[in-house]
């Protein structure tokens, strides 16, 4: 049983004449590590937003754990799928880096010393601890991206969907990120990485889906 599935999904943005995604069928099993690649504007981010139920397809269906994605609330989707946007600025909304990590955990009911421990661990792991009292929106692009990733990682979703996660991250922290992803991947978390960073995806993913012009060009496993 696939965990996430897109069945003959098409999506057209309002005011556009050409669909961004055309009749796409894809299935994702639990725990898969997938690279979603393709040229700029080929529809990768749109596919991600469709999988997350953030866009409603004009044709086709999207299901998550065998239920239509439309049956879930955003909160319920967030509990299962961790999504880091291509533009991390849009998903940073707290006053400090520390709070950014703590926000979701607090809503999950994590409190006190337990909360502090989780936040401290992840921030120290990614060498972001010195920035804990800074406002996320004032950080550099790469730092913002890492904070956004950490905020989602801390919630331990079943699947991670990262849209161009390595875009502006330095090599040192990229290695840390790779190790962290390999680690949670081994523990069974599914990972979808939208990226052109072949070196990064090759070391993590065993399936590559190439998108071209809104359609799946190739979908294959790779060792």
């Amino acid at each position: 049983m696939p965990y996430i599935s897109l069945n003959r999904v098409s999506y057209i943005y309002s005011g556009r004449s050409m669909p961004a995604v055309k009749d796409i069928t894809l299935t994702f099993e639990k725990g898969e590590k997938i690279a979603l690649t393709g040229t700029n504007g080929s529809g990768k981010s749109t596919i991600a937003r469709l999988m997350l139920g953030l866009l409603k397809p004009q044709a086709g269906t999207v299901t998550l754990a065998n239920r239509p994605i439309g049956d879930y609330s955003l909160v319920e989707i967030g509990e299962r799928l961790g999504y880091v946007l291509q533009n991390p600025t849009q998903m940073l909304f707290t006053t400090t880096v520390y709070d950014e990590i703590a926000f979701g955990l607090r809503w999950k009911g994590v409190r006190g010393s337990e909360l502090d421990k989780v936040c401290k661990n992840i921030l120290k792991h990614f060498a972001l601890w010195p920035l804990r009292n800074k406002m996320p929106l004032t950080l550099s692009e790469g730092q913002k991206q890492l904070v956004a990733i950490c905020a989602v990682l801390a919630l331990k979703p079943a699947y991670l969907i990262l849209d161009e996660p390595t875009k502006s991250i330095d090599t040192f922290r990229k290695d840390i990120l790779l190790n962290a992803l390999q680690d949670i991947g081994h523990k069974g978390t599914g990972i979808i990485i939208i990226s052109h960073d072949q070196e990064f995806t090759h070391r993590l993913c065993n399936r590559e889906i190439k998108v071209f012009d809104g359609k799946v060009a190739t979908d294959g496993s790779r060792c």
Partner: protein
Amino acid sequence: MDLDVRTKLFIAAIFSVLAIVYQDPVILGALLVILLPVLAFLKTPLGKFYDFRKLFYLYLILIIIQSLFVRGGAPLLKIGTIHLLTTDGLIYGLAVVMRFIILVGAGLILVACDTAKLLLAMSKMKIPYEIVFMIQLGIRFIPTLIGELSATFDAIQMRGADLRRVYKRKVFKVYLEIFTPLVFGILQKAEQLSILLELRGFRRYPERTSYKTIAMKKRDYIVIALTSAATMVFIFGAILYGKEQIPFNLR
């Protein structure tokens, strides 16, 4: 029909002014009925109306608020001896919403125009460039901003904050928490935009030449003449209809 931007500007201005001047629901209704074929004639992308669906509740609240404060007519809803809602109230509430729709429709005529041509037209009409630019910014920047804010609100909920939750106090706390960063983010974007503007030679408009050109053709003059005549007929009709409907109370 492919009309000059200035002609479209003229038509949009007429509808906006009439919608603001008149308050009578019948006259506003008539104006709305006239606006629809005009929009079709100008090939206005009515699909954009759909973008305003999220404002539906705002309309509803507008109707309710308007309705509550207008007395007169038969009571529709009352608590004890207090008339909460009257027929007159409801009609005026509807009038406010019709006015809103007319203004949005008139705005859509301009949204559909090529922005560069619109700017050119306005500056040829000697409207200061800063004002022209602000209008352009409103048309183009605000929808983007709304899009980005809604992405942020999606992210907030996907991080576990159930904003539709019954515990209103907790939701209020979330809004309080995210308020400063949200405003900060908007200001940050505005600042980036202003830097970009400087880099691209903002305020150099009088010295700038334009790749695009605009020209009034015969049909533009015909349409403007017809629109003017129709407007007079409309105002005359409204006066005949009575009810203190002379624009600016010229009586």
